[in-house]
């Protein structure tokens, strides 16, 4: 009964031809470097572009409004100064007619400006995120790369180290970091630095422990790539190990790395939120988005703005980073078809054409 009918065979052939046409059609990219292809693919991804734009706006807003690195910002308040309560702390901004007002996001109970606090919080959260992403990416790439390329005892040592770190609970490490960041009596430069830059220390430490997943992925990638013909070719032509690693293998593994770094970064924002909720993250009177949400979780029914604005920023940052990561994944994965609206419709047509035999009633049965 399920013998393919002639019509189905024809349809299947047609579909294959179509698929081939789309494949070759999308290979106008020939003659471009990998970077150019990736860029082109990435900028064809609507979701990723919107994500990138949203993230850029938040980044600029956060770092210019309340100032950073000692440079004052354009907003009139900062996150610690107390000012008299205006209208019992409710937000003064309105959409129609559009106006900022004195405290656009409202004030907390003692009169600190929530806009300034949210911006400062966004700064801190973005800092933590970038630090974790950067450090974890670098260590993950090095450890995974070395293990995957050299194998043998290097791999054994590095991977056992990874195994040890991967089973230590992150919350515990964060709690210890919190301790160090809060000690100020011992007078060493580290504690002095930590006292003023708790969030930087937090980011660095979490970065030092978040690389393990990445290292495993990169190792896997290196394991397959080192067996490829082009690596053999390079080795036979006398390239040094360093050259093979950096010139030949790493560029091919960079896709996996970047994609997973972005995913680690979006998880980092949430990690910071969770830590602050449990009282192990950034400490008041400095602030972070997670701390703001955690501190005001009881206010969600009564003074919702205290909760909504920082919460909104967490979601926006997280969503935009995830979409950027999604776009990067699609851009780096050569097997996935190039995305453009037109070809998406074609793919849809193509897939509905191939699924057609299922929905149509075959005549022969």
């Amino acid at each position: 009964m399920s013998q393919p009918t002639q019509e189905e065979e024809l349809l299947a052939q047609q579909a294959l031809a179509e698929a081939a046409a789309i494949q070759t059609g999308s290979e106008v990219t020939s003659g471009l470097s990998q970077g150019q292809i990736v860029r082109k693919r990435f900028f064809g991804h609507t979701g990723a572009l919107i994500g990138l734009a949203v993230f850029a706006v938040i980044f600029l807003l956060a770092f210019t409004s309340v100032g950073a690195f000692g440079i004052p910002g354009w907003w009139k308040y900062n996150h610690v100064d107390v000012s008299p309560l205006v209208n019992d702390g409710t937000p003064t901004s309105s959409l129609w007619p559009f106006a900022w007002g004195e405290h656009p996001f409202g004030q907390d109970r003692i009169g600190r400006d929530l806009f300034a606090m949210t911006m400062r919080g966004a700064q801190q959260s973005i800092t933590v995120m970038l630090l974790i992403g950067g450090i974890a990416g670098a260590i993950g790439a090095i450890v995974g790369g070395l293990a995957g390329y050299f194998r043998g005892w290097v791999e054994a040592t590095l991977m056992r180290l990874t195994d040890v770190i991967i089973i230590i609970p992150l919350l515990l490490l964060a709690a210890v970091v919190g301790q160090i960041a809060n000690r100020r009596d011992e007078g060493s430069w580290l504690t002095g630095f930590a006292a003023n830059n708790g969030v930087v220390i937090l980011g660095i430490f979490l970065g030092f422990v978040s690389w393990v997943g990445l290292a495993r992925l990169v190792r896997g990638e290196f394991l397959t790539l080192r067996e490829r013909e082009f690596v053999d070719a390079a080795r036979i032509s006398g390239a040094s190990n360093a050259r093979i690693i950096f010139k030949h293998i790493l560029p091919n593994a960079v896709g996996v790395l970047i994609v997973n770094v972005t995913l680690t970064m979006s998880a980092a924002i949430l990690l910071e939120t969770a830590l602050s909720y449990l009282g192990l993250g950034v400490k008041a009177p400095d602030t972070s988005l997670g701390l703001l949400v955690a501190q005001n979780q009881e206010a969600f029914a009564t003074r919702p703005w205290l909760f909504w604005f920082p919460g909104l920023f967490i979601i926006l940052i997280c969503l935009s980073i995830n979409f950027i990561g999604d776009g990067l994944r699609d851009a780096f994965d050569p097997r996935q078809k190039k995305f453009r609206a037109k070809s998406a419709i074609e793919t849809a047509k193509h897939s509905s054409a191939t699924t057609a035999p299922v929905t149509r009633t075959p005549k022969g049965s």
Partner: protein
Amino acid sequence: MRFGRTSKAVGAAAILALALSACAGNTGGNTPSTTGAAKQGGSVGVAETNGFSSFNSGTADGNSDVNGHIGYATHSGFIYIDDKLNIVRNEKFGKIEKLSDNPLTVKYTVNEGVKWSDGTPVSAADLLLTWASGSAYYDDADSKAKTGTTYFKTAADTSGLNLTDFPELGSDGRSLTLKYSKPFADWELAYSFPGNGGVDVPAHIVAQKAGLKDAQALIDLLKGIKRGDSKSPQPVNPQLKAVADFWSTGFESKTLPSDPNMYLSNGPYIIKSVVPEQSVTLVRNKDYNWGPTPKLDEIVVRTIGAAPAQVQALKNGEVDIINPQASADTVDQIKQLSGVKMLLGNQLSYDHLDLNFSGPLADKNVREAFLKTVPRKDIVDKIIKKIDPNAKPLDSELFVPAQAAYADSVKNNGSSAYQDVDIDGAKKLLNGATPEIRIMYNKDNPNRVDAYSLIRESATKAGFKIVDGGLGKADWSSHLGDGSYDATIFGWINSGVGVSGTPQIFKTGAGSNYNGFSDADADKAMDTLIVTTDKAKQDDLQKQIDADIWKSGYGVPLFQSPDVKAFSDQISGVTSMPNQTGVWWNFWDWSRS
């Protein structure tokens, strides 16, 4: 499409089934509806923050709020404390007679008919065990030299009962007389304070579990051992050790033990069931007639940690009485509930700003200038008023407004000078100086962070340079008194009743005197205070000490921690209570309409 034979058969079967079902319909199950709870007295659900863990709440490990509350409901004693912080005697349980003032001699007699839930009468052996566990009489441990033994691991303050000799037991077998070597101010609280070494532990069970024959054997054992001395530690007495160990740890259990002797009651309720970390169910003790009679048949204690979860559980009818951590938002949420009554009050804990008598604040003028800048009203307005609109700054270092002596003390203690912020006055006192003040506080306590922010804002105006010395919750307390800061914001707990806490904080060189306060007048008054047994005299001395403290520029109390309780309007009899017993203090008055 053609139907095969089978398809037809299936179709026919389906039609038959439909026809059958049309006749049958949904008949409903035969599940019998269970009834069991609502007897005439009714049942009430109470939320507690922590899980129940011990049937003896007097031990160092078992001394948690929830254990104390359940212990309070399942045990009786000579006294209890009411919501006005008065000591009330329960004459139906037994009587207390002060036989002499010098030497202070007190006789405790349990009434006849008072018994444990296994039928054994409450006897002198129980009283003696209570004394032994709360007096540290046998201990010869020296914590510095690491020698000797601490037998009973009690949470109670043993300094009072430690002044007594081995008690004299009455011939009726249910009385005991304590003789103090010197007068002790808090003698009424020293013995049989419920949940803190009350007559909570049945001696006959402890004796049996520790391998002794009976309660009399326990009395004989205790009689035969001399007072311990930390200077000449003796070898461990194995029998006493067994008794003490069982007392200290034997009653710890998160579940209901299979042996009912482990949770004997001599109070209004008996524990019926325990679901670990979830709930404890108390039911009426049928024999109980030696104290206030409870109206409810059953109390279900449920463990709910987070404040929003408590409010929502109340809203959903899962519990009837809650006591969540107070915050303005919790209060607003409770206000929005229908059919719920709220009680706003104060706890006995209060936050205060203390100045070190050293560093830049060694100069009294600087201290006074700093205190003049503290915006006490503003702090209360912004931190506490949203919770309790009637809140006022606390104006005494020793009394809380619930105590009768508070109003009197405030009038004369000099607190009136620090009612309002006086920046000009502070500037005048500073005379152009700009001292740098490092303020230490707990960064994880939002009230203290906010108080710090407000003080910083105000003090800066007068020329002070404020340095943020705040530390995380794991760190700040170990820095108390180490001189790494100049001023600190933190909290004390006022005991509400009794005076032994006063010298602990304010006496020169005392254990909790972190800022180096030393005042000869106050020291002398405290020496007298601790041996004064008359309440009126105690109050006068405390008032004098209060004034001495304010006069010296010690610091200022900021506010009492607010307390929020809420209960369903089907429940009546719940009242506000500042101390640790909380709503439970009059659980016998609770009833369900």
